[in-house]
């Protein structure tokens, strides 16, 4: 082979490699989320991100230089590393825990404000792609902040006094928190489409994000200044719980966003219900781990963790139990064809009565797991606490929604019930206290009355059964009424589910019969093409 030939061959190989790389790049480009591509293009060209990015970088650099200067002047270089870290992380925290999620909120809201939502929603994009696209674009922005700030943060390790493990843990958790907050912000943004509601939501979100940033700074300071906590099992347990909670919150927020963006005829409830069940199962799993293996016999942990599940699910329950009862046309077609399977899936299908069934399923599950763990260790009071807690959930969500289901069909009515349920719980605790104040009844005045669930639960937890008796009677009566209000409703939901399963079986049988017709009849002579054309036409 001559040198010229070798050179030509090498050139060809390089070109092949390049074209292979280019092809790979093109394929990767095709697979990118369209919203991500658009948002990144817009963000990089827009002023919001560029200005904020440079402002934060300049601010962090300025603060860093100032701190080094002050440390040199004072001759106090021992604390330079931690102080420099706290200051720099403070700026980063505002950027990634406030600005970036808020940008995600604004970006989603801009689809309505700039009248682009209709065009987006009738495209082939799925709601999931829309939500993920917005969050991914926010994450790209966040990563740009991290790439700019990480050298600053790591340099504090070289300055001394800062543990590199603490830096790594903090950056990892901060990134996870930033992504979660972006999911929450996007989900939040889908809740309101009118300007006035959006303004309210923006204020609420900003009000929630700012404390998050301060909380992150506080946590970062603790981690850096007391890095020994990373070897404390309790702290690590909390960290692990936090790390499992964040992805769950992200998933839940993503599901809310998707449900809000989905077509009204689509099933917008099942994914959220499955995630609510997942949250319940994860908290129960934590209960098993903490109570059964880690702090064996610590009943407070068990009670607290099983309660966290239902408290975390409460907001979702509020929507589930007040959903419209009959299935939409599209959802009705998706009910499992097997009656048994359809009935098993019933609590996870849309509809208020099926929402009540979901609360019952979760409650029974929580009580069974708690009983299985606590009874062998001789802690029946924990089972009682969890059972009372779950009964409260059933009563609080079941009774008003059950009563409302008799007359309220409109969306407005259902929204009113969603407001009335938490308001009712508050009033049940507050009004007797007011009566106690007027009648000069000391216990009632201090909210220690049978209508206050928190008081009754506290009595049950501390085994003050005499004090709890009144509350348990009230609870029993409410549960009874809730059962009466929901029995017919749930029976109707069961019947509807059965009907839809049967209708699906009949529909599929009809389709199968129609599909079989061409091959048996004269059109079979047309051959495969004719049959497939006929099928396509159908």
């Amino acid at each position, binding site marked *: 082979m001559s040198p010229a030939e070798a050179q030509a061959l090498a050139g060809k190989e390089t070109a092949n490699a390049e074209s292979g790389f280019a092809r790979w790049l093109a394929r990767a480009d095709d697979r990118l989320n369209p919203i991500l591509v658009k948002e990144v293009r817009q963000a990089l060209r827009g002023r919001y991100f560029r200005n904020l990015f440079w402002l934060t970088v300049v601010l962090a650099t300025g603060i860093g230089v100032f701190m080094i200067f002050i440390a040199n002047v004072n001759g106090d270089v021992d604390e330079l590393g931690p102080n420099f870290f706290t200051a720099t992380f403070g700026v980063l925290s505002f950027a990634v825990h406030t600005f970036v999620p808020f940008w995600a909120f604004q970006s989603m809201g801009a689809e309505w404000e700039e009248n*682009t939502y209709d065009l987006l929603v009738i495209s082939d994009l799925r709601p999931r792609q829309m939500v993920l696209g917005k969050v991914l674009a926010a994450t790209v922005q966040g990563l740009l902040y991290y790439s700019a700030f990480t050298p600053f943060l790591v340099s504090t390790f070289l300055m001394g006094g800062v543990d590199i493990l603490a830096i790594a843990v903090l950056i990892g958790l901060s990134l996870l928190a930033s992504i979660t907050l972006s999911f929450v912000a996007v989900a939040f943004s889908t809740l309101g489409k009118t300007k006035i509601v959006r303004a309210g939501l923006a204020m609420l979100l900003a009000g929630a994000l700012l404390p998050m940033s301060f909380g992150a700074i506080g946590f970062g300071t603790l981690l850096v200044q007391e890095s020994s906590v990373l070897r404390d099992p309790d702290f690590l347990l909390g960290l692990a719980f936090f790390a499992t909670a964040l992805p769950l919150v992200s998933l839940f927020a993503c599901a809310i966003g998707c449900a809000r963006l989905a077509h009204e005829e689509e099933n917008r409830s099942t994914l959220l219900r499955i995630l609510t069940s997942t949250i319940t199962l994860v908290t129960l799993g934590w209960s098993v781990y903490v109570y059964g293996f880690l702090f064996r016999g610590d009943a407070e942990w068990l009670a607290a963790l099983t309660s966290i599940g239902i408290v975390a699910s409460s907001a979702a329950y509020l929507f589930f139990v007040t959903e419209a009862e009959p299935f939409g046309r599209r959802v009705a077609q998706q009910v499992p064809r097997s009656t048994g399977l359809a009935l098993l899936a019933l609590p996870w299908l849309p509809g208020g009565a099926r929402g009540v069934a979901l609360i019952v399923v979760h409650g029974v599950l929580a009580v069974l797991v708690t009983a299985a763990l606590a009874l062998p260790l001789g802690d029946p009071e924990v089972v009682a606490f969890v059972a009372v807690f779950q009964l409260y959930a059933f009563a609080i969500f079941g009774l008003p929604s059950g009563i409302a289901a008799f007359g309220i069909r409109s969306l407005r009515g259902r929204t009113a019930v969603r407001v009335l349920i938490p308001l009712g719980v508050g009033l049940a605790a507050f009004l007797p206290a007011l009566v106690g104040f007027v009648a000069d009844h000391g216990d009632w005045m201090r909210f220690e009355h049978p209508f206050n669930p928190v008081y009754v639960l506290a009595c049950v937890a501390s085994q003050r059964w005499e004090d709890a008796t009144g509350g348990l009677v009230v609870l029993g009566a409410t549960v009874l009424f809730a059962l009466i209000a929901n029995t017919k409703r749930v029976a109707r939901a069961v019947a509807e589910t059965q009907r839809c399963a049967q209708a699906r079986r009949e529909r599929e049988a009809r389709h199968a019969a129609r599909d079989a017709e061409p091959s048996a009849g004269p059109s079979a002579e047309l051959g495969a093409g004719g049959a497939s054309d006929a099928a396509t036409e159908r």
Partner: protein
Amino acid sequence: MTALEVRGITKAFRTLKAVDEVSFTVEHGAIYGFIGPNGAGKTTTMRICATLELPDRGDVFVDGVSVLDDPRRARKKLGFMPDTYGAYPQTTIREYLDFYARAYGLAGKARKATVDQVLAFTSLAELDHKLIHTLSKGMKQRLCLAKTMLHDPSVLILDEPAAGLDPRARIELRELVKALAAMNKALLISSHILSELAEMCDGVAVIESGKLLAQGRVDAIQKRLQPHHTIWVRALCAPDALEKALLEEPDVSNVRAERGGFGFDYTGDDEARARMLARLVQRGLQPVEFAGGEVKLEDIFMSLTEGKLQ
């Protein structure tokens, strides 16, 4: 298969019935005008067709696919251009179309080729690197039409596409619409500019207060509404002589002085009309202008609607 079939759709917003049992069909290759006063229910009907609103009753089928049973499949078959829409800031024309091409699942060379095609079709190819917010209204309408065509839908629903356009842009848009119909696409177009619609539509549907008042070919509706034509004539002879002559003609009624001549209602056919003109000439009345007889969409609209506000 019918391209677009609207079957008895009804939609109410609280107590207001925006659309009431509306039904019509649009065939492939046809341009269908959708006319009605403000608040008549045109946009609501179109948004239901485009899967953006749910009807309380009824259904819409796009190439046989129900927008209620399978909105995703229906969306693939239809393109919708809303009356008000926004464009992303800091985005060029090509980036905008590239984004929607991606959103419609187009990939690789096919995506680029499709974007190039729609840019060429809408004559935006030379402006593809311009930022959208710098475009004129007419250019933005073209861009939205280009976006609507990206996934090659068989049904196009255009809500007030000519609103706010200058005369040149309107004519260009009309040509684009005709070209789309020639590509065997079904088009449903709403507009306030009735003369625009009359020139390109194969049929119309007239709606008021949510109810469909009439639908079909323009001349057929006209015939049903008014069995006579309106004709206007001007002659060099004395006005009295012309009026007298007209009143003596068969099939002529309601003669009235108009614009320096006479307008009248005429129930005869085209041959009878030709013979009448010949007679006016033979009588030495010296007719110099003899016009009318064509169907006017404005007349249909005014005859059918009462200008009720909802």
